[in-house]
């Protein structure tokens, strides 16, 4: 099975600091993959390199047969990688439904004049986006909040809306950056089920960064552990749980 996403010796330096060092990652299509590590291990930096936000200093990222480092976030999104953010970045003044609709914008085939002159193509596009967004809100359990401005959503729902918006881009791979942060245990259980559903029902490959060990161990099939920018372990949840280096990284360095 060939990998959907593969990085080879991905390295990034900020000034003198090597934030991520020779990072290798291989995710196969349909996998539910976890990337974990202590604070400051460089996980979010990896996401930023995968999605075109940061340009790696060295190394390569291949996705679905394309070399994607050097591409900007818009190009990466169009190739089929979508993501959420650790510090939620919703479009606060838009409604919940409109937030999800913005995810569908990149697939619209109409031009500005269709919208300005209100051609039939415009109305078809609006319907397509609205229907798709609504489906995804239902999928995430947010359909009865569709008309609410996003800024009025409670915290847990904001995280879910970000996922719905990312799904609306019709990605092949979705990268979730600490999706459970700030959620209570009930919400976390619900979120675990949703993440599984994303993979099983929508058939989207999932890469998740998470602090909550229970959630990661629970849902991920494969886990890679990062510490100080370096991979220290890779394996199934049970292998990771018994890995000496991992235990040391989490409990040791105090």
């Amino acid at each position, binding site marked *: 099975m060939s990998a959907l996403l593969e990085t080879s010796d991905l390295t990034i330096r*900020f000034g003198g600091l090597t934030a991520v060092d020779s990072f290798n990652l291989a995710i196969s299509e349909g996998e539910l993959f976890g990337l974990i590590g202590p604070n400051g291990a460089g996980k*979010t930096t990896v996401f*930023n390199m995968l999605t075109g*936000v*940061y340009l790696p200093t060295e190394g390569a990222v291949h996705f679905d047969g394309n070399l994607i480092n050097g591409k900007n976030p818009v190009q990466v999104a169009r190739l089929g990688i979508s993501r959420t*953010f650790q510090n939620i970045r919703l479009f606060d003044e838009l409604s919940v439904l409109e937030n999800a609709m913005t995810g569908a914008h990149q697939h619209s085939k109409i031009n500005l004049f269709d919208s300005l002159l209100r051609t039939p193509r415009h109305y078809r596009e609006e319907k397509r986006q609205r229907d798709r967004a609504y489906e995804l809100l239902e999928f995430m359990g947010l359909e009865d909040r569709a008309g609410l401005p996003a800024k009025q959503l409670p915290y847990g729902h904001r995280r879910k809306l970000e996922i719905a918006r990312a799904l609306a881009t019709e990605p092949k791979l979705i990268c979730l950056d600490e999706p459970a942060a700030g959620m209570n245990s009930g919400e976390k259980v619900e979120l675990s089920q949703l993440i599984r559903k994303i993979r099983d029902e929508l058939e989207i490959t999932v890469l998740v960064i998470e602090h909550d060990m229970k959630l990661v161990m629970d849902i991920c099939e494969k886990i890679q552990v990062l510490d100080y920018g370096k991979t220290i372990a890779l394996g199934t949840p049970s292998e990771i749980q018994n890995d000496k280096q991992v235990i040391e990284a989490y409990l040791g360095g105090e």
Partner: protein
Amino acid sequence: MPEPVGSGILFGAPVLPLLDSGVTFEAILQQVANGIAKGSVYALIAVGYTMVYGVLQLINFAHGEVYMLGAYASYYPAKWLGYMPDAGEKPKVPLVLIAGLFVASMAFCATLGMLIERLAYRPLRNSSRLAALITAIGVSLLLQNGGQMLFGADPKGFPRFMDQESVSLGPVALANTKIVIIAVTAVMMTGLHLFVQKTKPGAAMRACSYDMRTARLMGINVDRTIALTFATGSIMASVGGVLVAMDQPRLTPLMGLLMGLKAFVAAVLGGIGSIPGAVLGGLTLGVAESVVGTWSTTYSEAVAFVILILVLLVKPSGLLGKSGREKV
């Protein structure tokens, strides 16, 4: 004054005749000297922009008006004391009184600067930067138009403190007032440097500009430090105002508008937030304007804005600034 009109490209738009054979090397050298004097004033005003921006990330649009009011704040006492220009008469103002006028203007502007901060900017410290920017524009308009109401729109002549005479300095000749501008600026900049680097309040300013939240946690009185930043910047601008008034005795309530914009450009050019940068930026801009002015005075007005756009595009952090990275 008719400008040279070139052959034209777009509807006969004038093209700058870059290679005018009438311009000699000496003439350019002379313009460089004039430019340093001009740039000194930009630098005096630019440090105020850069310090406030460093601390609050706010373009204090009203700063040019502080400079304007600095000039008026020495005009009225001078007038009251009866030192008005008399044609043909030798100026006989004692040095001590000149110093007094500077001090009066500095005190007035320091108070004004702190007042502006307290009344207009502090209530907005936690709102969007856009709201603060618009408020700054509002304060600028208020001072300009308030100035027009109080002082009238007609230009005011400033008392002559010294007879303007040309002093020969090697290949160039400079008016004595311009030499005073350069000398006073050098003294003020040295003073500012010592204040910021060697004193406790100066250290507090640097701390706030580095990280205001941490500075507060370290027990620094942030409100007082910000007020002090405004006061210091305003003092520098007021000195610029008095110096310009001495050199070109023509005060108008709108004199701060273009001067302020250009000084801001100087601050951006030097790297906003950096005091040495503001000085370097001011001098560079002054020299560039003067040299271009050898060919065309109106185009010299455009120099600042062309430089501004080029700097923003090529190196937004300016000559001596640090570049930041957005945290994702």
